[in-house]
């Protein structure tokens, strides 16, 4: 099965080609959907097969390379199109194809009747193709191919309903924003590839990381590489300062938000940081930057999420916040904890988005949670699964989110210090609060929608079954990564599975302080207590006393407005970056540099030549004698010159 891994990339590509080329002709939604979902489903089965085969191998043989062909061969640079099948890439591949398959199935129901049905599935398949390249690539170039590919698909899918309005603009503008912001990160990634090639003389993961682990390379070099890698990651994974595109990416259809902007693509940055762990381990200062940026992103996004009223916006900020957690973990050197959170987050956040999609579907495209309320009895299955996911993300003990978040918080405390833990803890409280606010406003309380026009209904089975599967995963997904404090040194299956990947980095870091079990359990108890009290508070306020929330928002109207307008970050960017670039391009580059200088120089030269030849032309009078006169004059001059030079 490991040797067949290329099929997991090829099948979605084939699905994309079939649906993309013939989709319009096929017309039958069932066939289009079956091709799209089937391609990913088979890929998933192959990944599962490869996974079990790899598990069966001894630890030192678990990293296998599947070479397909030589892609580039220029002088000393050899780039092979090869896939690296190891513990990390398999974990990611399982998430992408598994969750991806469920979302494909869900989309058959969600996109039913859309005129772009075939286009949607073609794009989704193309996305899986690109994402698999990103994950499986065994060198930076293949990774970059996938990296750009997922960016393209993200652009295409955010602007999928290109004729619809979105907030103040159109979905195309949101798509463009995502693309442009991502380009900034991609620029960092490109630079880092050059740097890596200069430093290590190779772009292959194994060679680069082996050299990084053994060669005496200056910390500043590692720092440069790591910082540019991280800039690349901030673009794709929506971290400060490049997170502004993700909330706008909600302009796309909800399954897209679930697949690309929650479960898979946005975790690409985390994957890359985790893959290059050895490089980050060589640059402790950059690790600190990663952790701080992650932490700040987490709390910033969570605080914005507290007051948003669009169901998808809340989830979008929640995603940004959770991604911040992942980078916090990576920055703390807890790479396996960050990937663990990638996995559990993929389950519950995909479920939340799909649940939100189900609600939006049942409420006739209404997305404002203030206009929901009391939907519990109309959508029992959606409610139940949504409830499970909400508990998981809020960190209720026993569900997947609890284990992964707790591991991150513990690492933040153990390797970072009390402040890191405290900020992470406050973020976790905010998370619990805004998620239960969302849950209460949507499913509990008074029905605030217009009964004459909106008749809430449960979604069909093709949508609710994926929800149930994801709900199950959200519950049990955490048990493969139980905290060491409960199950002993080798009890955390997830961590021991990924351990060989991070082993070189861990040897370099080796900064785990000793903390007593008592401390860990105490912190865990505190975090659970705080999360539960936040949940209780949110439920109490939004279920029973909605007027209290109103009062608070009036009393702290300054803060409320600040949060509601997302700290005016979009406005600041608009004024500080977008406008100057736009104005500068128009006034200086276009009007002055292009029109005056370049066009002026070219046109001026042409005009000059035109003038000179215009006057030279007059010499040609057509009268033969004048030509003869000039000839004679010339001959006379030549003779004169000959005589004088004798």
């Amino acid at each position, binding site marked *: 099965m490991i040797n067949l891994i290329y099929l997991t990339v090829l099948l979605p590509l084939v699905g994309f080609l079939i649906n993309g080329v013939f989709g319009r002709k096929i017309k039958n939604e069932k066939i289009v959907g079956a091709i799209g979902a089937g391609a990913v489903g088979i890929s998933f089965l192959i990944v599962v097969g490869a996974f079990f085969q790899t598990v069966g191998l001894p630890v030192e043989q678990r990293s296998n390379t599947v070479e397909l062909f030589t892609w580039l061969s220029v002088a000393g640079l050899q780039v092979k199109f090869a896939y690296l099948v190891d513990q990390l890439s398999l974990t990611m591949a399982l998430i992408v194809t598994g969750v991806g398959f469920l979302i494909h199935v869900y989309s058959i129901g969600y996109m039913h009747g859309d005129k772009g049905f075939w286009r949607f599935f073609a794009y989704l398949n193309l996305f899986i193709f690109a994402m698999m390249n990103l994950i499986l690539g065994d060198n930076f170039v293949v990774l970059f191919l996938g990296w750009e590919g997922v960016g393209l698909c993200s652009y295409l899918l955010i602007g999928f309903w290109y004729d619809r309005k979105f907030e103040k603009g159109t979905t195309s503008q949101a798509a463009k924003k995502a693309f442009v912001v991502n380009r900034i990160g991609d620029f960092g990634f490109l630079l880092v590839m050059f740097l890596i090639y200069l430093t290590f003389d190779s772009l292959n993961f194994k060679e680069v990381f082996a050299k990084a682990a053994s060669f005496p390379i200056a910390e500043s070099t590692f720092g440069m590489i790591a910082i540019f890698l991280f800039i690349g990651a901030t673009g794709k994974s929506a971290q400060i300062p490049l997170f502004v595109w993700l909330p706008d990416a909600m302009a796309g259809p909800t399954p897209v938000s679930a697949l690309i902007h929650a479960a898979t693509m946005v975790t690409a940055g985390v994957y890359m940081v985790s893959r290059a762990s050895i490089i980050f381990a060589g640059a402790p200062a950059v690790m600190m930057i990663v952790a701080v940026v992650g932490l700040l992103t987490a709390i910033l996004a969570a605080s914005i999420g507290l007051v948003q009223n669009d169901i998808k916006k809340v989830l979008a900020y929640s995603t940004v916040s959770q991604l911040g957690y992942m980078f916090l973990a990576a920055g703390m050197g807890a790479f396996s904890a960050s990937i663990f959170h990638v996995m559990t987050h993929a389950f519950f956040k995909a479920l939340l988005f799909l649940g939100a999609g189900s609600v939006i579907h049942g409420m006739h495209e209404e997305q404002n949670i203030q206009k929901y309320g009391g939907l519990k009895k109309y959508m029992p299955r959606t409610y139940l699964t949504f409830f499970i996911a909400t508990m998981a993300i809020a960190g209720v003990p026993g569900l997947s989110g609890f284990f992964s978040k707790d591991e991150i918080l513990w690492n933040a405390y153990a390797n970072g210090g009390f402040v890191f833990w405290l900020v992470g803890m406050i973020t976790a409280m905010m998370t619990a609060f805004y998620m239960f606010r969302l849950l209460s406003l949507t499913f509990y309380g008074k029905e605030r929608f217009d009964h004459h026009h909106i008749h809430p209904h449960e979604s069909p089975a093709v949508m609710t079954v994926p929800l149930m599967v994801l709900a199950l995963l959200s519950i049990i997904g955490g048990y493969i990564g139980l905290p060491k404090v409960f199950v002993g040194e080798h009890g955390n299956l997830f961590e021991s599975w990924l351990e060989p990947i991070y082993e070189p980095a861990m040897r370099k870091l080796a900064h785990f302080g000793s903390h007593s079990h008592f401390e860990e359990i105490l912190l865990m108890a505190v975090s659970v207590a705080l999360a539960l009290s936040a949940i209780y508070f949110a439920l109490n306020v939004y279920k029973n006393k909605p007027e209290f929330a109103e009062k608070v928002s009036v009393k702290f109207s300054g803060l409320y407005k600040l949060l509601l307008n997302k700290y005016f970050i979009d406005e600041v960017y608009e004024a500080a970056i977008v406008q100057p670039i736009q104005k500068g391009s128009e006034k200086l580059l276009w009007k002055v540099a292009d029109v005056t200088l370049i066009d002026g120089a070219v046109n001026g030269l042409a005009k000059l030549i035109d003038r000179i030849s215009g006057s030279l032309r007059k010499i040609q009078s*057509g009268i033969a*004698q004048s030509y003869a006169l000039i000839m004679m004059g010339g001959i006379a001059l030549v003779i004169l010159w000959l005589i004088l030079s004798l």
Partner: protein
Amino acid sequence: MSSVPMEYYLILSAFMFCVGVAGVLIRRNAIIVFMCIELMLNSANLTLVTFSSYLGNSIGQIFVFFVMTVAAAEAAAGLAIIIAIFRNKKTVNIDEINIFKW
């Protein structure tokens, strides 16, 4: 023969050549221009013959025969062209024949 110095012939030849040049540049009638060209050719011939005689080398005289042959052919072709132009434009004034321009 030897009583007349070579310079006399050469001065005569140069004078004839200058008359020819002046005629080509100044006169308007194409036939006269044509005749002036012949004058220039013959002044060149005179120079050749002069040097041939003074240097005792017959190559110059042989060369003159060739020049005369070519000049005869050229005269035939040139006169034909002048006649053709006259038929078209009813004039042989070369300042009126100025179609060779932009």
